């Protein structure tokens, strides 16, 4: 459902979208059902001359079952939602698949800076490419990012990846993504970080392997 608004550009984007769709369907059904019953009762039992209200204590069996059954079904739906949500959460945030490339993402007051592994695909070597405001990655490869912040809390958010992780100063937080769509996308900061929080956007370039190799060649000194 979300993909109608924001393109899916990572492997787990579909999982998160389907989870959101599942919740939309379940909660949508319950919502419209409840509103329908609500407005139905308003109409059916509106004030009519000579039709007094009934005396209902709430202990009547035949009425209580109209509450208990929906209540039980709501609990079942909640269980389904919880299981689905925890599954998606585990895949995205807890489980780390085997990693092909690693990058460092550093948030600081009002810009994202990135450290790419460079030609030797090894992070921490001296041929790493540091960029500010631009992240260049190759599609169809599992990237691990080490997220850190230099001053206040920031939040590395890539809507097309359905990726979001806060950067806490003093901590290094890992996460992964695997792009599966070529193009240029937005990176936003999703945690209030002061006066420049609004201008802290960056651009994400998902390249084909050739484009990426050309970019590395152009940028490694």
């Amino acid at each position, binding site marked *: 459902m979300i993909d109608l608004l924001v393109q899916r550009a990572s492997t787990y984007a579909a999982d998160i979208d389907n989870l959101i769709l599942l919740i939309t369907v379940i909660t949508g059904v319950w919502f419209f059902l409840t509103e329908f019953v609500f407005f139905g009762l308003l109409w059916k039992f509106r004030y009519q001359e000579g039709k007094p209200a009934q005396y209902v204590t709430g202990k009547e069996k035949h009425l209580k079952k109209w509450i208990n059954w929906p209540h039980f079904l709501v609990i079942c739906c909640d269980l389904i939602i919880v299981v689905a949500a925890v599954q998606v959460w585990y895949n995205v*945030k*807890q489980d*780390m698949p085997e990693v092909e490339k690693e990058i460092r993402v550093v948030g600081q007051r009002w810009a994202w800076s990135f450290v790419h592994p460079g030609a030797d695909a090894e992070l921490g070597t001296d041929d790493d490419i540091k960029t500010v405001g631009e992240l260049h990655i190759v599609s169809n490869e599992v990237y691990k990012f080490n997220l*850190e912040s230099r001053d206040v809390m920031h939040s590395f958010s890539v809507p097309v990846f359905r990726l979001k992780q806060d950067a806490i100063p*003093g901590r*290094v*937080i*890992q*996460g992964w993504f695997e792009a599966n769509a070529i193009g240029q996308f937005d990176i936003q900061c999703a945690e209030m970080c002061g006066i420049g929080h609004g201008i802290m956007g960056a651009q994400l370039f998902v390249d084909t392997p050739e484009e990426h190799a050309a970019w590395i060649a152009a940028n490694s000194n």
Partner: protein
Amino acid sequence: MGSDGESHAAHYKKIYVILLGLLAVSLIGPYFGEKFDMMWLTLITAFGIAFVKAWLVLKHFMHVDVERPFIHYALITGVGFMVLFFAGVSPDVMKHEGTNWENVGAKAEIARALAEAEAGGGHGAHGEAAAHGDDADAHDDAAEHKAPAH
């Protein structure tokens, strides 16, 4: 509350003496606990006795045992929420790494402080972080026995 007035005052004084005794034990215990490096002795005497003293004050001075039951539930719920708060927060504050995250800031701080304690340490004089900057100039004079890092 109990029989005539006189035995009351005596009762409270009796409890007071017990409390002082417990206080003495909770002071001597850790002293020996450190000397012979018996960690459990320090824990039992310092903290165990704190709970006993707390119960004595609650029971005999605040008369909580004769209080209405819902007061007990309210007090216990308050303490229960603090235990719940401790349980929910400690994985992030007490621990310095977990799934996919590591608190490098805290670890660096601990390593630096311990190294500093070691460097300044050795038997006798004890280095410590006076001003928090890197140039920790140890100028502590009161030589105390080396503290066991528990």
